[in-house]
Each structure stands twice: as C-alpha cells, then as structure tokens.
C-alpha cells in the first residue's frame, strides 16, 4: 500500500512515517503541499494523508485538486488542528474522506486508514 504523507512539521512527519512504515506501508513523506501535489500527479497512491496548514498548498487545496482536477477517488485523510467545526465541514465538502484532529492518535489513524483502504 502506497501512502502519501504531507506534513510540514518535521518531527510529526518523521514519526508518522516511521510508524506507518512499521505497519507495512510504503510511505512517501512531503513537507510541502506543492511537492506533495506534484507527486500525486505523477504517482498513484492508495491513500493520501495531509495536514491542513502547509507551505505551498494547504491540505484542502490538495484535496480539491485531487478531486476536481485529477478526478481521483484516492481516499484522503486530513489532519486538522483547529477545533473549529467549519474546517472539518470544509474538509468533507471538498471531498476528504476523513479528518483526524491533531495530535494524531496512531491507533485511530490506522483504523481510519484500514477502513478506507478496505472499502
């Protein structure tokens, strides 16, 4: 399973990719929304995990592009850090399949990922 991970915080990014690799995923980590999006255009991923606030493009912009321009159905999980409901609603409206509030619980992340991937 190929996972794209877009998160600008190095510590969180490194931790999550370490965790996901240990779970047997093939992880491509990106610290910048723009680079992540370029990679999505060129490679096929089984699932996309993305932070909301990032340099380059935001998680919402990535999701919107994946859905509306690339017309991909790749599952997208957005990491939100604000507890503002609107962000979460926006995530869904734009086409994200799940959002997970930070700090991201590894167990919950895994459950949500598996749920999306086994659909």
């Amino acid at each position, binding site marked *: 399973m190929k996972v794209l991970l877009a998160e600008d915080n190095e510590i969180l990014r490194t*931790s999550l990719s370490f*965790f996901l690799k*240990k779970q047997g995923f093939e992880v491509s980590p990106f610290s910048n*929304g723009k680079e992540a999006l370029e990679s999505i255009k060129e490679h096929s991923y089984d699932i996309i995990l993305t932070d909301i606030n990032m340099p*380059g493009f935001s998680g919402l912009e990535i999701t919107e592009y994946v859905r509306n321009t690339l017309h991909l159905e790749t599952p997208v999980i957005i990491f939100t850090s604000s507890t503002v409901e609107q962000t979460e609603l926006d995530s869904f*409206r734009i086409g994200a399949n799940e959002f997970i509030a930070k700090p991201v619980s590894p*167990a919950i992340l895994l459950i949500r990922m598996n749920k999306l991937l086994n659909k």
Partner: protein
Amino acid sequence: MQSIILPVPQNEEERLTALLDYKILDTISEEEFDDLTLLASSICQVPIALISLIDKDRQWFKSKIGMTDAETSRDISFCQYTIMGDSIFEVQNALQDNRFKDNPFVTGQDQIRFYAGAPLIDPNGYAIGSLCVLDRVPRQLTKEQKKSLQTLSKQVINQLELRQKNIQLKNEISSLAKKALEDLSQELDSYKLALDQTSCVIITDEHGIIKFVNDTTCRVTKFSKDELIGQHNRILNSGYHQPEYFANMWQTIQNGSIWKGEIKNKAKDGSLFWADLTIVPIFDEQGKASKFLAIKSDITRQKQDEDQLKQYFDLSKDLLCIANTNGYFERLSPSFSEILGYSNEELMARPFYDFILAEDVLPTQKVISSLAAGHEVVNFEARFTCKNGGHKILSWNASPDKGTGLLFATARDITEIKARAEENKRLSFVARATDNMVVITDKTERIQWVNEPFEKITGYTFEEAMGKKPAELVQYGGTSPETKKTIREALDHHKAFRGEIQNINKAGKEYWVDLYISPIYNDKGDLINYIAIESDITEKKEKDSNIANLLATQKAIFYGVGLCVIFTDTQGVIQNINQAALNLLEYKSGDLIGKATPALFHDPEEIKKRAKDLSSELGIDLKPSFETFVIKARSKGVADANEWTYISKSGKRIPVWLSVTCIRHVNGEILGYLGVAEDNTLKKQVENELIQAKNLAEQAVFAKDSFLANMSHEIRTPLNAVIGFTELLTQSDLSQEQKEYVEHIQTAGDNLLVIINEILDLSKIDSGQLHIEEHPFNVKNTLKHVHELLKVKAQKNQLDFSLLLDAEIPETIIGDKIRINQILMNLAGNAIKFTEEGEVVISVKKTAETDQTITLRFSVKDTGIGIAESKLESIFERFRQAEESTTRKFGGTGLGLNIAKQMVELQHGKLEVKSKLGQGSEFYFSLEFKKFFDNNKELKDQHNTLDNELGKLSILLCEDNELNQRLARTVVQNFGFDIDIADNGQLGIELIKKKKYDLVLMDLQMPVQDGYQTTIMIRNELKMSIPIIAMTAHSLVGEQQKCFDIGMNAYVAKPFKQYELFEAIQDVIKKQRASTDQSQEDTSSKESLEEKLAPIDFTYLDELSGGDADFKKEMMELFIKNVPVDLQELAQAIQEKNQAQIKKSAHHMKSSLAMFQLAKGIQFLEATEQQAAGEIMDSQLPKNFQDFQTYIQSVILSLKNLL
C-alpha cells in the same frame, strides 16, 4: 564360344499362368517338399537334389539339398531343357556336352558334371519345373533310379495340388467366418445401441466398484463418466431402501444368480428416479462371479407416462412445470418461453432463482422449503425476469410429490392484472388525495363526479355541480375566444387538451388553473367520459410575474448601475460586462465578451506585484495570472476587495476599488467570478490630499513630541542631580544660613520640575496615556499635606489659609491620590499666587453617598483679583491667563488650570469657576469615589516606610551618567542594599554572568548597549527572570509600555524621589519572592534551572515508535534541534508584533510539543495562535512568552539529560 539357342516350351504363356496359380513362388520352404528332395538325393545317391520351378526369367527352388542359391537365371539352368519333354533329361558329363561345358555351374565353383531332372507336369500337362539331382562327378542313373525320380516328381505335383487346394479351402472358410462374424456383430451393435439408448448399463467389480458406465447412465444420473468410474455404486443410493434389500441382492448375485427388482436411485442433483434393475454376474475362469453387469431401465412404464406427459406439457397453453426442491426446473411447458423470452433449455440450465427478482428470492426460498416439507402452496406471487428486460408477475399453485421430491406447479401471468389494479388504486388515490381538482363528465360534458378540492376552490358542492357543464359553472368572461375555440375543437375531435386558463368561482373570484382534459374510452373504443384535472396555479402565476420583475430588476441594476460589473467564467474569460464598465474602459462589448480576460485592462506590473505579495502571504508560488485576482475571493468565500489600476483602451490609468466575488452553484461548484469595480479617481485624489494632510499633522505632532522628549531629557538629567544632591544636603549638618540656601535651591528645583512635569502631563493627556489609578488612600491626610505644603507660601503673603474638612468624610477612600493632590496644589497654589490680601480656603464636603460610593465637593476659594466674566471661558485654555500682564506679574506657564481641568474630567468631574473681578474666585468640582471597607489595614505614610524589610539586596545599576551613578549609589546604600555599577549594558551583562544579583536598575539611554537591548539579552539569551527596573528621564508616551513589553518589571521616572525608587524596589522584590514561593523554583538562577527538569510524557511517542529506542532518540534530537529555531522565530514575531507570523510559528510548534505531550506549552501556543488569528495583541504576551521560553528551555535540558 558358339551361341546356344535356349529352349522355350510352345505353351510357355499358359505354362507360366499354371505355375503362378499354385502361388508357390517365393514361399518359404515346406517340409512336404523337402522330404521329397531328400528322398530323391538319397535314391540317386547324389549330393544335390532340387525342386526347381521355371519362372519367366529364372529358376526358383522350392526345395534344395546341397545347394545354397535360392534361384538362378533361367538361361543358365539345366532345367529349362527338362521342361521341354515329359521324361528324364540326363546330362552324364557336362564337360562333354556342348550346351553345358561353358555353363557357370560347370565351370564355376559348383563344378557340376552330372544332371538328371524329371519334369513336374501339372494335371493340365504344363511342365512347371523339375525335380532334379546333380553331382560333381560324371555319372549315369540306373533305370530304377530314373523311375523313382519320375515317381517322386509326380509326388511333387501332388503336393503342389494339395497345397493349392488347402489354401483355397482356407480362404473360403475365412471369408465365410468373416461374413458370419460381421452379421453377428452388426446384430450385437444394434442390441447394444438399443440398450444404450434405453437403459443404464453399469459394470462393477465384485466389490461394487464401478468399472464401466454407458452414456445413458450419465444422462440419467447426471454424473459424468469420470465421476462414476472408480466409485462404489453406493454413489447412486437414494437411502430409500432398507439395508436388507441390498443384502438380499448381494447374496443373490454372489451366488451367481441373476437379480431382478425395482430400485430407487438418486442422481447428482439430488433428484430421485425409479428403475427396473437387472444384475447379471459375470464369471471368471475359476467360475467365480468377478464382475456384475447391471442394467437399469423402465422402458415400458416410463415411455408411456413420458409420452403422455410430453403431450400434456407441450400442448398446454397454461404455465405448467415440474421442478425440484434443489431449485431447478425439470420440465416446462412452452408457454414459459413465450412469456419470459428465455428458451426452456435456458430456463432449465440454471437454478430458477436466477430468474426471480432479487427481492422475491427469499420469499420463494421459503415457499420451496414449505413445499419440500410437503405443504401445498396456493397463489404465491413471484416476479420473473424477462430476457429482454422487465419482469412478469407469476402467481403459482404448487404441490410436492413426496416420493420423488418433485414439485408440480402451475402459474398464471398476472402482470397486467396487477398493473391495472395498481393503476386503479393509484388513480382513485390520486383523485381523492390530490389537491388538484378532478372533474368527470359524461360524453355530453355533463358533470358526473367532482372531488373535494373542486368543491373547495369553485365553491360549488357536488350536488350543485351534478349534471351541469363545467363551462356553465366556472367559465371566465375574460377568457379569450381563441382559448375557448382550442378547447372546443379538442373536445369535438375527442382529443386531450392541456393549457392554462383563468376560471371564476361561485363567489366571483378569478383563479388560474393548469387544465388537462382527456377523453376516456371503453374497450370497444367508444367515448364514455371526459376527465378533467385542474391545478390551481394562481400563486405560481403571481410569483412568475414577481420573478419576471426580479429578473428585470437585476438586469436594470446590471445595466444601470454606475459601477463596473464584469462576469467571467472560471478561467477568467469575460462573459458579460455592463455599459458603465465599457464607458470607463473605452472598449466595445464585442472586444471583450468571450474573447478577453480582465488582464487586458489591468496594469501588468500591478498584477505581478500583487502575485508576489500573495505568494508570500499565502506561502505558495503564485504566477501573475487571472488567479491573482480571484484566489482570495475563492478561498475566503466572501468578496475580496482591493485597489487596482485599470488601463483604458486609450491608455488612461484609472484607480479602481475592485471587489471580486466567487460565484458558486448551490453544490459548491465554481461557476465563475463577478467583479464590481468603482472608479476611484476622485476618491483617490481626496484620499491623497488627506494622507498628505495627515502626514503633515503627524510630522507636527512628532516634532512636538520629540521636542518635549528632548527638552525633558536635557533638563531633567541635570535637574535630577540638583534635586537629588539637594535632598542629600538637607540630611547633612548645615548652618542655619546654609539650610536656608539649600531650601531655596530645593524650591527652585521643585518648581522647575513642576513646569516640566506639567508639560509632560499635558503630552500624556493629549495622547490618552494619562491613567487615573484607583488605590485606597487617606483623603484627609492628602488634603492636610497640600495645606501643609502651601501654608508656608500663604504665610509669606500674610494670607489666612485654611482647610475645612466635613466631619462626614471617611478616612480612606479609593481613588487617585496623586491626581487629587496635583489638582488641589494647582488650584490652591494659583489662589495664593493671585491673592494679595484676605484669605484662601480649601473646603471639602460630602454631597452624596450610596452603599458603594461617596461624592465629595472640593472647593478653593480666594479673595484675590478675580476674573472678568468675559475671560471666564478662556482661562482653562492652554497657555492662557486672564490677563497677558498676569504672566509678567505672577509668572507660571498657563498650563496648570488646563491640566487641572482635564484631570478632573478624567475622573468624571467638571472643574467650574465662579468669580467677580476684584472680589475673588471660587474653583470647585465634585468627584465620586468608591468606598473603602477594609478598616483593619493601616495605611502607612510612604514617606516613613523606608524601614528595610527586604534584607540586604544585591543590586546592579546600569547607568552611564557619572552624577546619576553617584546619586543612585548613595540612595541605594542608604536603603541598606549593596550596589554594583556598570557604565553600559554590555558591562552589565558581564557582571550578571559573574555574580548573582537580586535586581537590576536599568537606565534606558546608554552608549554601546542601551537598556532595551540589555533587557532583551537578559531575558532571551541568559533566560533570566531577574527583576529589572527601568530608570529614565525619557518619560514619554508609550515609553513605559515599551519597557513592560520587552520584559521589564517596573518603571521609575528620573529625577526620582527616594521613596518612589524604594517603593518600586520593594514592589518587584515582593512580587518575585511571591512567585518563587508559589512555584517552588528559583528561575532567576541558571543552576537551579538545571536542577529542575520539566516532566516529559513519552506515551504518545512510544505508541508511534512501538518503543523503538533509536527512533525515540532521533525524535528527541530533532526536538532539541528544531524547537529553539521555532522559538527564535516566535520571539522575533512577537517583538515585531507580526500577527500572521505569530500565528504561523505558534501553530507550527504545536505539533512538535504534542509529540512529547507538553500540555502547558501547547496551552500557551494555542492561546497565542488564537489571539493572533483574531488580531488581538495581548499585553501579557511578552511576559507569558518569557515563561514559555523558560519552560521550553527546561524541557530541552530534560531531553538532553535523557539522551
């Protein structure tokens, strides 16, 4: 050598035919012939004897003794001569015979000398060869020998004849046998075929293992050959028969007898069948029954039934079927394929569930189970799919046959019946339930039935309407003749009509209906009824006209509005543009619509710049494009308004205020963009003028402020020294005269300070920086103090100066002591100044009281020169005194009254004056104070509280001015504290690093490194929370706030009064000690910081890493590396008050802290992020940030310790 004519018999041809007929040539040697040659050689006593047959070109030996050649050429043979005659041909010595002396047999190795041959003459007289004897020596046969040889030759012919007959006989027999065999097998084949066609043939071994099956067996049992062969014949056992049944069968056949009986078997699909069974044992050589042949058939009975059933099924028009409980049709009448479109083969090939609609499968399965259990089923409905789509509803009756497990069922196609019933149900439901009016008339258009809505809307009851024509009841006079005619024509031609018409009800009210009239025919096609359905569309009609108006209005706005309105598609191509925009831009709509984007009339440089700004603002790489205009409008979801510059077709630059809105479909899809632009040319001009004016004004204010700042600094620094040393001087031993002088200096200094303070106060008041404080204070003591201070002056003027205090005034109230003091000093000071004789009275009275507050009226009354009525208004203005001459005569700045007035107003009072020229004045005001309830707390006069409760503090002073250094040293040492002095901030930092101080007194203006820089270094780099008190002559607006913002703890203006400094020291030390006691940690010391490590929660990290130690270490190192960088970024952002950056940095750090679950830090970052997002600048932020920084520092220390 002479040539020899070779002899050929006259009948050579026939002779050869006769020879060939014997079919002897080239056959193998036969005993019968060899016996004869042996006999010949022994009778004639020669070594060689031959039976030589003369073929066309050769002599071939059927038998030979003493010769190895199988044949020789005919022309060299002796025998060719023999066959010419019918007696013995003898050559006694070949060497002497000319015919033979050169013969190879003679000259060659055979060395033949003697030859004697008897011709072999067949019964027809043909000489076919000879029986001859040969020798290598010349000799002569005896008479007897010759006779014997001839006899033997006859014997050879006899043998040949016999042989030929034998062969003929054999052939005859074999052909006969073959024919008989063919006949027989043909017969057998037909038997076998018949058997195969009608019966199952199964051969098993003695154990019952199947060795052979025929095709019929496979067809009947539904097993393939492979599935059966090798299996025990129990595979077909139905379980129907008792074990004794089979025991009997086995006993019979194992005894070698044939078994006959009826048996019920089970096929592969579970279906059961009856068969007549014959089992024949087959015996092996030992006479044991080693195989069994089983033949199963039911030809007679089945055939009959089958034929009848077939006819019944095939001819039936009804839906008949036989199915099994396993879900297969076994037999179907042809009607099924007619109805469903599948062939019967297709229907039987798959389980019938495959043809049933998914929703009906479960009910069907239940019914089949019920049938399997032996119950009958009646009128069970199930929907079957049709091959060409759709489905048919079949109603089933079915009975099970217990014996065979088969289901016998009949079905009816009730699809249409159902549909009709459904339609009827729906129609009647609709007619009753609908809000629409339903009218049914007979064919003469007379009403037969109306529904309730008709009654309600038209106002006519059913009874009233019965028998009338609808036109008589509701036709509106205003309906156009054309409409009437159209309806008439439709009805006359028995056609349906649909249209909107206006009707009128019983009460005369008009209403609009959407009318649908349809003729109704019976089965025979005769017109029987009309049905009319009418819906009331009055409201819709009205709404339509409203909407039409709305659209018209929108259009009018679009074209009529004075603003430029431009619609683009998502790519920016202009879709519509209004006249105002065309006028402004000087383009024609044809130039733009569908052809251009707004970039055409924008300043390209401006777009580039904006794209760059947005790129850095949004942190993306935005190219100058249409996106530059809309990116914010799209992400914000509301209009995004900015200043832009349009460039008209002729090149005119037009500043506009452009508001861009993203137009979305209700589903969120972006449809395009709307730009509304306002011509800003005029506005821009006005704005520019205003900005210029404002800049000028600000420059003026700045000039004033900077003048004041400079003046106060320049004057206060020396004055600080003057007043300070004078104060010290008064404390030393002086002569009376000296004391007097010193007091003069003191008074002069104080006056000068008053003037400067007044100016500074005014500057503070102007900028709103003067705050009224609320502290408990002893109001009576304050008033007494003012009286006390001014008494000396009044006495000099020989005035009666009295203080009248209302007895009801409480000792302590809450308010601003300093300001009250300042106001009264000013008013009373003025009164004394302007009164040459008589009295000055300060009086305070309580005028009102509530539970919480008390109102006091303050009055200063004199018998002085008074103020002319015309001047009463202007005396409160700045730099104004009642008379110009006053200044010359009495001195003063003319600011005092203005300051007093404003200070009263800041306390929500009003300073008023009553005066008569030459008779005196009264200045008075009323103020409301909060009551003070804590009577236990003794208020101390701060002048007398220099008692040192603080112990021996170690203080560092950073100050460049030598005089001030000396003054401060003396004062601080007098307080009982130790003091070290640094000439500038840099030296101060060095001292701090070396020695532990309790407090820093920090001058702000210093060379090398000023007080601000030094403080920032102490807080951010040394990470020390040591109290810092700012000391400055620069007591300007905002100064104090700036000091607090960078982390100083208190502020003392120079020149300082001793008690003010002491108070400040006491205040910060007490606060420091309080917080230290509370948190049980001394953060001012680096050593103790290290001792105290922040607790770190690794559970989250452990969950992520699965306890991987290397990974954990890596994360800790990353934290130590990254977080201080983030921290520095945040510090800078806070200092620059860059809200966007604060938000970004705080947000970024949050995730790092979350890794180690640093809740305290996260809390700070969250609050900071939210405040920054809301553009709120919390004055506590620099202070809180310091705490945060200290906290992170301790976390990093903890992490380093763990590594």
